[in-house]
C-alpha cells in the first residue's frame, strides 16, 4: 500500500524543483511592480543622463554625438564654475551653523523634562515644511518693506537690509536652510545623545569632571560617528539646493546664487542645452555616489 504512494528520487527532485521555481516566480511577481518603476524612473534615467552628457540636442533637435564638448563647456563656462563655487560656499555656511545650533538645542532638550515634547514639536515643525513652501514663507520674511526681518531691524533702530543683494543673497538662502533644518538635526542629535552610556558620565562626575570637560572629552568623541553620518547626509541633501533658489532669486543677482541644480535646470529647460545640463547632472551624480560610498564605509564601522 505504502509503495504505491512512494515517489522515486528523480520524481521527488523534479517536483521539488517545480515547486521551488513556482515560489521564485511568485516572489518575482510580488516585487515586479516596484522594480518596474524603480528601473523606469531611477535606474534607466541615471544611465541615460550619462549618455546624454556626450551628446547634443534632444529637446528641439535630434541627438548628435559631440564627445567631450559638453564637459569642456561646464569647465570653461563662468556661470558653471560660479554655480559649483556657490553650492560649496552655501554648504560651508549652512551645515556647520545648523549642526552647531542643533547640537546645542539637543544638549538642552536632553536635560529638561517639562515641555520636552512641546519644544521638540515646535522645533520640528519647519522641517516638515517642504523646501518650496519654506521658500515661499521666506519671501515674506525677507521682503524689503513688510518682511519680518526688516520690520524687526527697524523697530530696534537699525537700517533695513536688502536681503537679496549680491552680497547677502547666498547668506539668505543658507539662513533659510538653517531655519528649516534645525529641528531635524536637533532631534537626530538628541536621539544620539540619549543613546550614550550614562555610566561614563557618572564615572566622570565621581572624578570631579566639570560639565564642560564632560562635553569635550566624553560627548563629542562619542558623537563622532553620528557627526560623520550627519555631515555626509547634509552634504548630499544640500548639494541639490534648488527650490529656494528658483523661488527667491532665480540664481541672481548677477549669478550670486547660481547653484549646481539651478544650472542643470536653466541649461536644459531655458536654453535647451540638454547635453550641458546632463554633464552637470552627471557631475552631481558622481559627487553623490562618492559621498554615498563614504557613508557606507562609515556605517559599516562599529560604533
Amino acid at each position: 500500500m505504502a509503495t504505491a504512494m512512494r515517489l522515486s528520487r528523480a520524481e521527488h527532485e523534479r517536483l521539488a524543483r517545480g515547486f521551488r521555481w513556482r515560489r521564485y516566480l511568485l516572489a518575482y511577481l510580488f516585487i515586479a511592480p516596484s522594480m518596474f518603476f524603480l528601473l523606469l524612473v531611477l535606474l534607466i534615467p541615471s544611465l541615460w543622463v550619462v549618455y546624454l552628457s556626450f551628446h547634443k540636442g534632444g529637446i528641439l533637435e535630434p541627438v548628435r554625438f559631440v564627445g567631450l564638448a559638453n564637459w569642456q563647456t561646464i569647465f570653461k563656462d563662468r556661470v558653471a564654475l560660479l554655480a559649483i563655487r556657490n553650492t560649496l560656499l552655501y554648504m560651508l555656511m549652512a551645515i556647520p551653523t545648523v549642526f552647531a545650533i542643533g547640537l546645542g538645542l539637543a544638549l538642552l532638550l536632553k536635560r529638561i523634562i517639562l515641555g520636552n515634547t512641546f519644544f521638540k514639536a515646535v522645533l520640528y515643525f519647519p522641517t516638515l515644511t517642504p523646501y518650496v513652501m519654506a521658500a515661499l514663507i521666506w519671501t515674506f520674511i525677507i521682503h524689503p518693506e513688510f518682511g519680518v526681518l526688516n520690520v524687526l531691524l527697524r523697530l530696534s533702530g537699525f537700517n533695513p537690509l536688502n536681503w537679496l543683494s549680491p552680497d547677502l543673497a547666498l547668506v539668505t538662502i543658507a539662513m533659510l536652510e538653517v531655519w528649516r533644518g534645525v529641528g531635524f538635526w536637533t532631534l537626530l542629535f538628541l536621539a544620539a545623545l540619549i543613546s550614550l552610556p550614562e555610566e561614563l558620565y557618572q564615572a566622570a562626575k565621581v572624578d570631579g569632571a566639570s560639565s564642560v570637560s564632560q562635553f569635550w572629552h566624553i560627548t563629542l568623541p562619542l558623537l563622532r560617528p553620528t557627526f560623520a553620518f550627519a555631515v555626509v547626509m547634509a552634504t548630499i541633501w544640500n548639494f541639490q539646493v534648488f527650490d529656494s533658489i528658483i523661488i527667491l532669486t532665480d540664481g541672481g543677482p548677477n549669478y550670486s546664487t547660481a547653484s549646481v541644480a539651478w544650472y542643470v535646470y536653466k541649461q536644459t529647460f531655458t536654453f535647451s542645452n540638454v547635453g550641458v545640463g546632463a554633464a552637470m547632472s552627471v557631475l552631481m551624480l558622481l559627487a553623490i555616489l562618492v559621498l554615498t560610498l563614504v557613508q557606507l564605509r562609515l556605517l559599516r564601522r562599529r560604533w
Partner: protein
Amino acid sequence: MTTVAPARTRGQVAEIRRAAERAHLRRRLLWWALAYSVLIVAGVAAILPFLYVVSLSLKHTESLIEYPPRWIPIPPYYGNYAAIIHHDLFLRWFLNTLIVASSVTVIKLVIDPMAGYAFAKMDFPFKESLFMLSLSMLMIPLAATLIPMYLLVRGLGFQNTYPGLILPGLAAPMGIFLLRTFMEQLPKDLENAARLDGASEPYIFARIILPLCKPALVTLAIFTFLTQWVAFVWPLVIAPDPNMFLLTTGLSSFKAQYRVDWGLVAAGMVLVLLPTAVAFVLFMRQFIAGSLAGALKQ
C-alpha cells in the same frame, strides 16, 4: 597632646549643608532659566514665520506696508481668502494636487507592501542584490535624473497629464524598506501555522501579514501623501500648462507676476499648509519617528 579639630555642633553642620544646597539650587535655577530662554527663543524663531504669514493673509495687500505693523490684524480682513477661493484656477490646482497625491499614495500602498513582503518573507535568486540595488537608488537625486525623465515622459506623450505627474512619485524606494523592516519584526508563528494549514503565499500576505502592518501602512500613507502634496520641481518641469499646475507651482506662479498680490499669496499658502499642520498635530509621533528612520535607514 594631639590637637583635635574643634568638633562642629550639629547646628553648624546643618547650616553648611544648607548653604551648599542653596548654592546648588541657585546654579540649577540659573541653568533652567538659561535653558528655557534659549529654547523659547528657538521655538519662537521656528514658529514666527508661519504666524507672520497667517497674519499677513488677514490683511489687505495695500495695508501690508504700513509701519509700525499691526502684528495681529484686528479686525481681520477675509478678502484674500474669498479672492483665492474664487480665483479661476485655485480650485482646479487643489483638485489636481488631490488627484496626484491620492493616486500615488494608493498605488504605493499596493506595490510597496508586496515588494516588502517578498524581501522579508520569501526566498528567491538575487534577492540580496536586488535589495541592495533598490537601496542604492534612495540616493539618486531628482535633479540628476530630471532631464532623461523629462524626455521619457514627454516621449510617452504624458506632458501636462496626470500619469506624467504621478510617475516619478511611484519610484521612491523608502516604502519598501519601511515595510520590509516592519514585516521582519512580526512574529512568525501566525504565518507558519497558516503555511501548515496549506495557505498560499498571496493568502498569507493579504489576510495575515497586511492587517498586522497597519501602523507602517499609516506612516507610509501619510508620508507619501504629504510628499506629493508639496512636490515642486517635477510638476514645474512636466506640467507647464496653468490648467495642470499643482498648488505649489500655481502659488509660485503668482509670485512671478509683475505686480504680486501678496495678501493673496499668503492666503493661498495658509490653505496649502493647513493640511500639513493638521496632520502633524494628529500624527506627531509617526512624523518624528518616520523621518528619523528615513535618515537612519541602514
